[in-house]
């Protein structure tokens, strides 16, 4: 399967930033500083369980549900 990480990251950024360009930028920056580069994932990226688990963990700390 592929593309789940991108869908999760898109959802995380959308829920946190609410289309505010500044917050989109800072949310992406915070993800990068935690070792997740949102721009490295697309619809064809494999569903790596380790990355999925990391994204779920980050989302949990942000108080956001992604699946």
């Amino acid at each position, binding site marked *: 399967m592929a593309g789940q990480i991108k869908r999760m990251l898109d959802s995380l950024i959308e829920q946190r930033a609410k289309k505010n360009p500044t917050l989109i930028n800072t949310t992406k*920056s915070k993800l990068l500083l935690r070792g997740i580069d949102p721009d490295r994932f697309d619809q064809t990226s494999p569903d790596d369980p380790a990355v999925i688990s990391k994204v779920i963990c980050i989302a949990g*700390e942000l108080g956001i549900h992604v699946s």
Partner: protein
Amino acid sequence: MSIQTAYSKKSLPDAVSDIRTQCGNNKPRVVLCFASTKYDPAALSKQLQAAFPDACVAGCSTAGEIANSKMLSESVVAMFLGEDVVEDAALAVVENLSGDPEVVEAFAHFERHFKTPVMSMDLEKYVGLVLVDGLSGSEERLMEKIGARADVFFVGGSAGDDMKFKKTHVLANGRAYTNAAVLALLRLKKGFEVVKTQSFKVTDKVLVATSVDEPHRTVIQFNHKPAIKAYAEAVGVTVDKAASVFMEHPLGLMISGEPFVRSPQRVQDEAMVFYCQIKEGMELRVLDATDIVADTRKAVEAKKAEWGRIAGLIDFHCILRTLELRSKKHCDQYGAIFNGIPCAGFSTYGEQYLGHMNQTSTMLLFR
């Protein structure tokens, strides 16, 4: 009173009297102080709070101080923020950092004080300051926790101890703390901007951290090779010479076209220990040093040209930059960048803005 600064090289308690005198009859809303380890932190904090009983007083120990146009040592510097700059302010202390720092209570305190949910605070009016024990090794986790709870920008520095690397302190509410961070949340009247500047050219040489020991800020392998071998190859030196070029060639995590600098500290067997965490899978660029004075001047002048004037500036300035400026005898030139701007700051053991980083001047500019 807007923004004023002061410094003293006297001993306690005269240094605090000196600072109080330089503030005149003004009653600042916030007093920030950055002090050499020459000063007993508990006594300094208590005396400063007594001298400014109505103010939020916060600070930390340093590895060198900055006041107005001077780079100092063995001094205490202060910045006074008046009611016409800071509409309201609150302080919180986060203790027991080296475990898993918990900021819930700090943010609950801020919400009670400002009667506003932190997540609803206006990003252009509120700004946070963070001063953190520079030997706790917990800055990344602290900033992750802060960043999860708040969209408000928190900016700051890791406390120093004059390069003794034994104990650093943060100061708040008349007390001194170690293994702790002080968070200050300010609601400003006229706005602000955070300027992060580093003096490096980004090269096209890429190192990917393929094996790391995150808690110990150690990279075991870059590009599936022993870290120091891969680094030496990328920089173009032999392994035995690699450590001698760490300051000139740190690594950068690229974010929006700007490097967030990760500075190597030492070689450990074939691994590399850094001054901040590198996560597994991070793609880093090798950086080439440029001119600190010229680059910082350009950043400050650009903002001055845009705003007309800068009402005040706090400079969180990496100790590695200070060491370079000292070795090149460029401290006076660096200080002169801030001519005409009320400026205070200190040489840090790391800077904070969105995360933790090294070898920057991370500046909070008041409009």
